[in-house]
């Protein structure tokens, strides 16, 4: 019996401003598409793990998110739950599904992210505790503090942040599902103005309504399924629960702890990764992760991303679907789906030829949580 977990199906709803749609309704659509993609039927699903986006919270009134969604899908699963890890949540629920399948707790586990923040305006702008008294609202302010530190410590420039935004838009131009398909020039990047200085408009991710789902099952169960299997080569987490009063809170990411460890356990070096899908809520986070995962040395990410290195046709394309910056805010699940499509050879105009390995990261809350997933063919 081979219980080794793998990804057998992916699917997502449209993303953007979807007037009249709710998060749960979008999640049902994504779940149906992922199950169809896998070639499975509703009766096969015996696991459901969910990552409700920030505008939903984990509780919908008093009904937990997994229960609300599971009821709409008519499931009586053997295994379920929701995670609240912010942007690290989508990768976290896939990890949880892998563990549940390999432990024999369920055999076909649906992993669903969804949110409809545009119909719940302002939901991303909440303050974090008493810092509200000093105007520290939204995620942009926190990440701007980290960006300013990176500039101070390593001489990183605003134009280097711009390189990340420009690369994301160039990738998105090859993705028919992307919300922003028009390429961005450095001139446009600079002229758009600051949101929270030093971060400009294009340094900040999109806000989107939408849902995305992945099906995790065992190698045995997947033997006769339609699509090429995507193998799980490694996964892990690391978190930094230090408060903003901790001395190094803005200078490092917990990715520096779990990233190298996961790669090492999988027997891979950063240079072995063909598809790099880094959580990109803000451009600075891409730079910090390139360093944390060892794609470049600490402090060198700014110059590393120059000259289109992470754009289409560059030596290290990052976020080939456009990511949170240009495709859509998909919680992190769209990063996983793009990796699966690349490994299956389904990425059309943006296909990385011969892609055999992929790394996906999740990063969340007040720079507190981090999750890593490595996939292969």
């Amino acid at each position, binding site marked *: 019996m081979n219980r080794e977990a793998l990804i057998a199906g992916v699917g997502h709803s449209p993303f953007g401003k979807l007037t009249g749609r709710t998060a749960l309704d979008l999640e049902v659509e994504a779940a149906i598409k992922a199950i169809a993609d896998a070639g499975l039927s509703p009766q096969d699903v015996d696991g459901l793990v969910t990552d409700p986006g920030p505008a939903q919270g984990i509780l919908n009134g008093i009904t937990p998110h997994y229960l609300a969604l599971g009821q709409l899908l008519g499931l009586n699963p053997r295994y379920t739950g929701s995670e609240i890890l912010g942007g690290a949540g989508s990768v976290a629920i896939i990890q949880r599904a892998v563990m549940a399948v390999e432990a024999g707790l369920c055999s076909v586990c649906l992993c669903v992210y969804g949110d409809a923040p545009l119909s719940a305006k302002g939901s991303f*702008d909440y303050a974090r505790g*008493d810092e509200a*008294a000093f105007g*520290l609202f939204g995620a942009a302010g926190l990440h701007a503090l980290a960006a300013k*530190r990176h500039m101070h410590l390593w001489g990183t420039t605003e134009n280097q942040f711009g390189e990340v935004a420009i690369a994301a838009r160039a990738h998105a131009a090859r993705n028919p599902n992307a919300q922003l398909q028009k390429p961005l020039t450095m001139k446009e990047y600079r002229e758009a103005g*600051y949101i929270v200085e030093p971060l400009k408009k294009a340094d900040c991710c999109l806000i989107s309504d939408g849902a995305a789902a992945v099906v995790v099952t065992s190698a045995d169960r997947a033997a006769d399924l339609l699509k090429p299997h995507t193998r799980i080569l490694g996964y892990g987490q690391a978190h930094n629960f230090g408060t903003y009063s*901790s001395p190094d809170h803005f200078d490092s990411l917990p990715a520096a702890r779990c990233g190298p460890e996961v790669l090492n356990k999988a027997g891979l070096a950063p240079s072995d990764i063909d598809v790099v899908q880094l959580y990109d809520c803000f451009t600075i986070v891409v730079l910090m992760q390139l360093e944390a995962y060892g794609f470049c040395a600490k402090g060198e990410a700014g110059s590393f991303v120059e000259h289109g290195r992470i754009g289409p046709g560059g030596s290290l394309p990052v976020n080939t679907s456009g990511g949170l910056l240009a495709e859509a805010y998909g919680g992190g699940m769209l990063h996983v789906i793009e990796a699966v499509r690349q490994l299956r050879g389904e990425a059309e105009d943006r296909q990385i030829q011969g892609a055999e390995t992929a790394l996906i990261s999740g990063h969340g809350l007040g720079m507190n949580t981090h999750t890593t997933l490595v996939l292969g063919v």
Partner: protein
Amino acid sequence: MENEYPLPQPTPFTESFWDACQQELLQVWRCKVCGHPFLPGGPVCPECWSDDLEMQPVSGRGEVFSFVVYHRTYHPAIPAPYIVASIELENGVHLISNIIDCKPEMVRIGMQVQVAFKQKSGFKLPMFTPTVHTNTTFQLKRGNSSV
């Protein structure tokens, strides 16, 4: 109501910090067992889990560890532009606050600052202003005390 300042919501763990601010005193928590200074307050020291804790007054001097300028207004009571900073106090504890009485383009990481309590909706908040000529002031004080 909308224009009221989003004041801190003191909890049993943070109320002594905010109470001291109302007396224009800046204090941090310190563990009496391992000496670790920390904010915000909690039931035990986050380093060694001892519950033998005390509030310790600090000088209110520090330096800018990082700062950002909000160009967008998130709350009507705090109109942009304004400066949010992480201030490193002399004992190494960091504090999120505002830099006031200073143009955004004049702020630098490493700049010396001093606490200044500002009343907002009847509640005093610890904000920070640039310390001008720190060394001169220090030398003058020392000179006076030796007379």
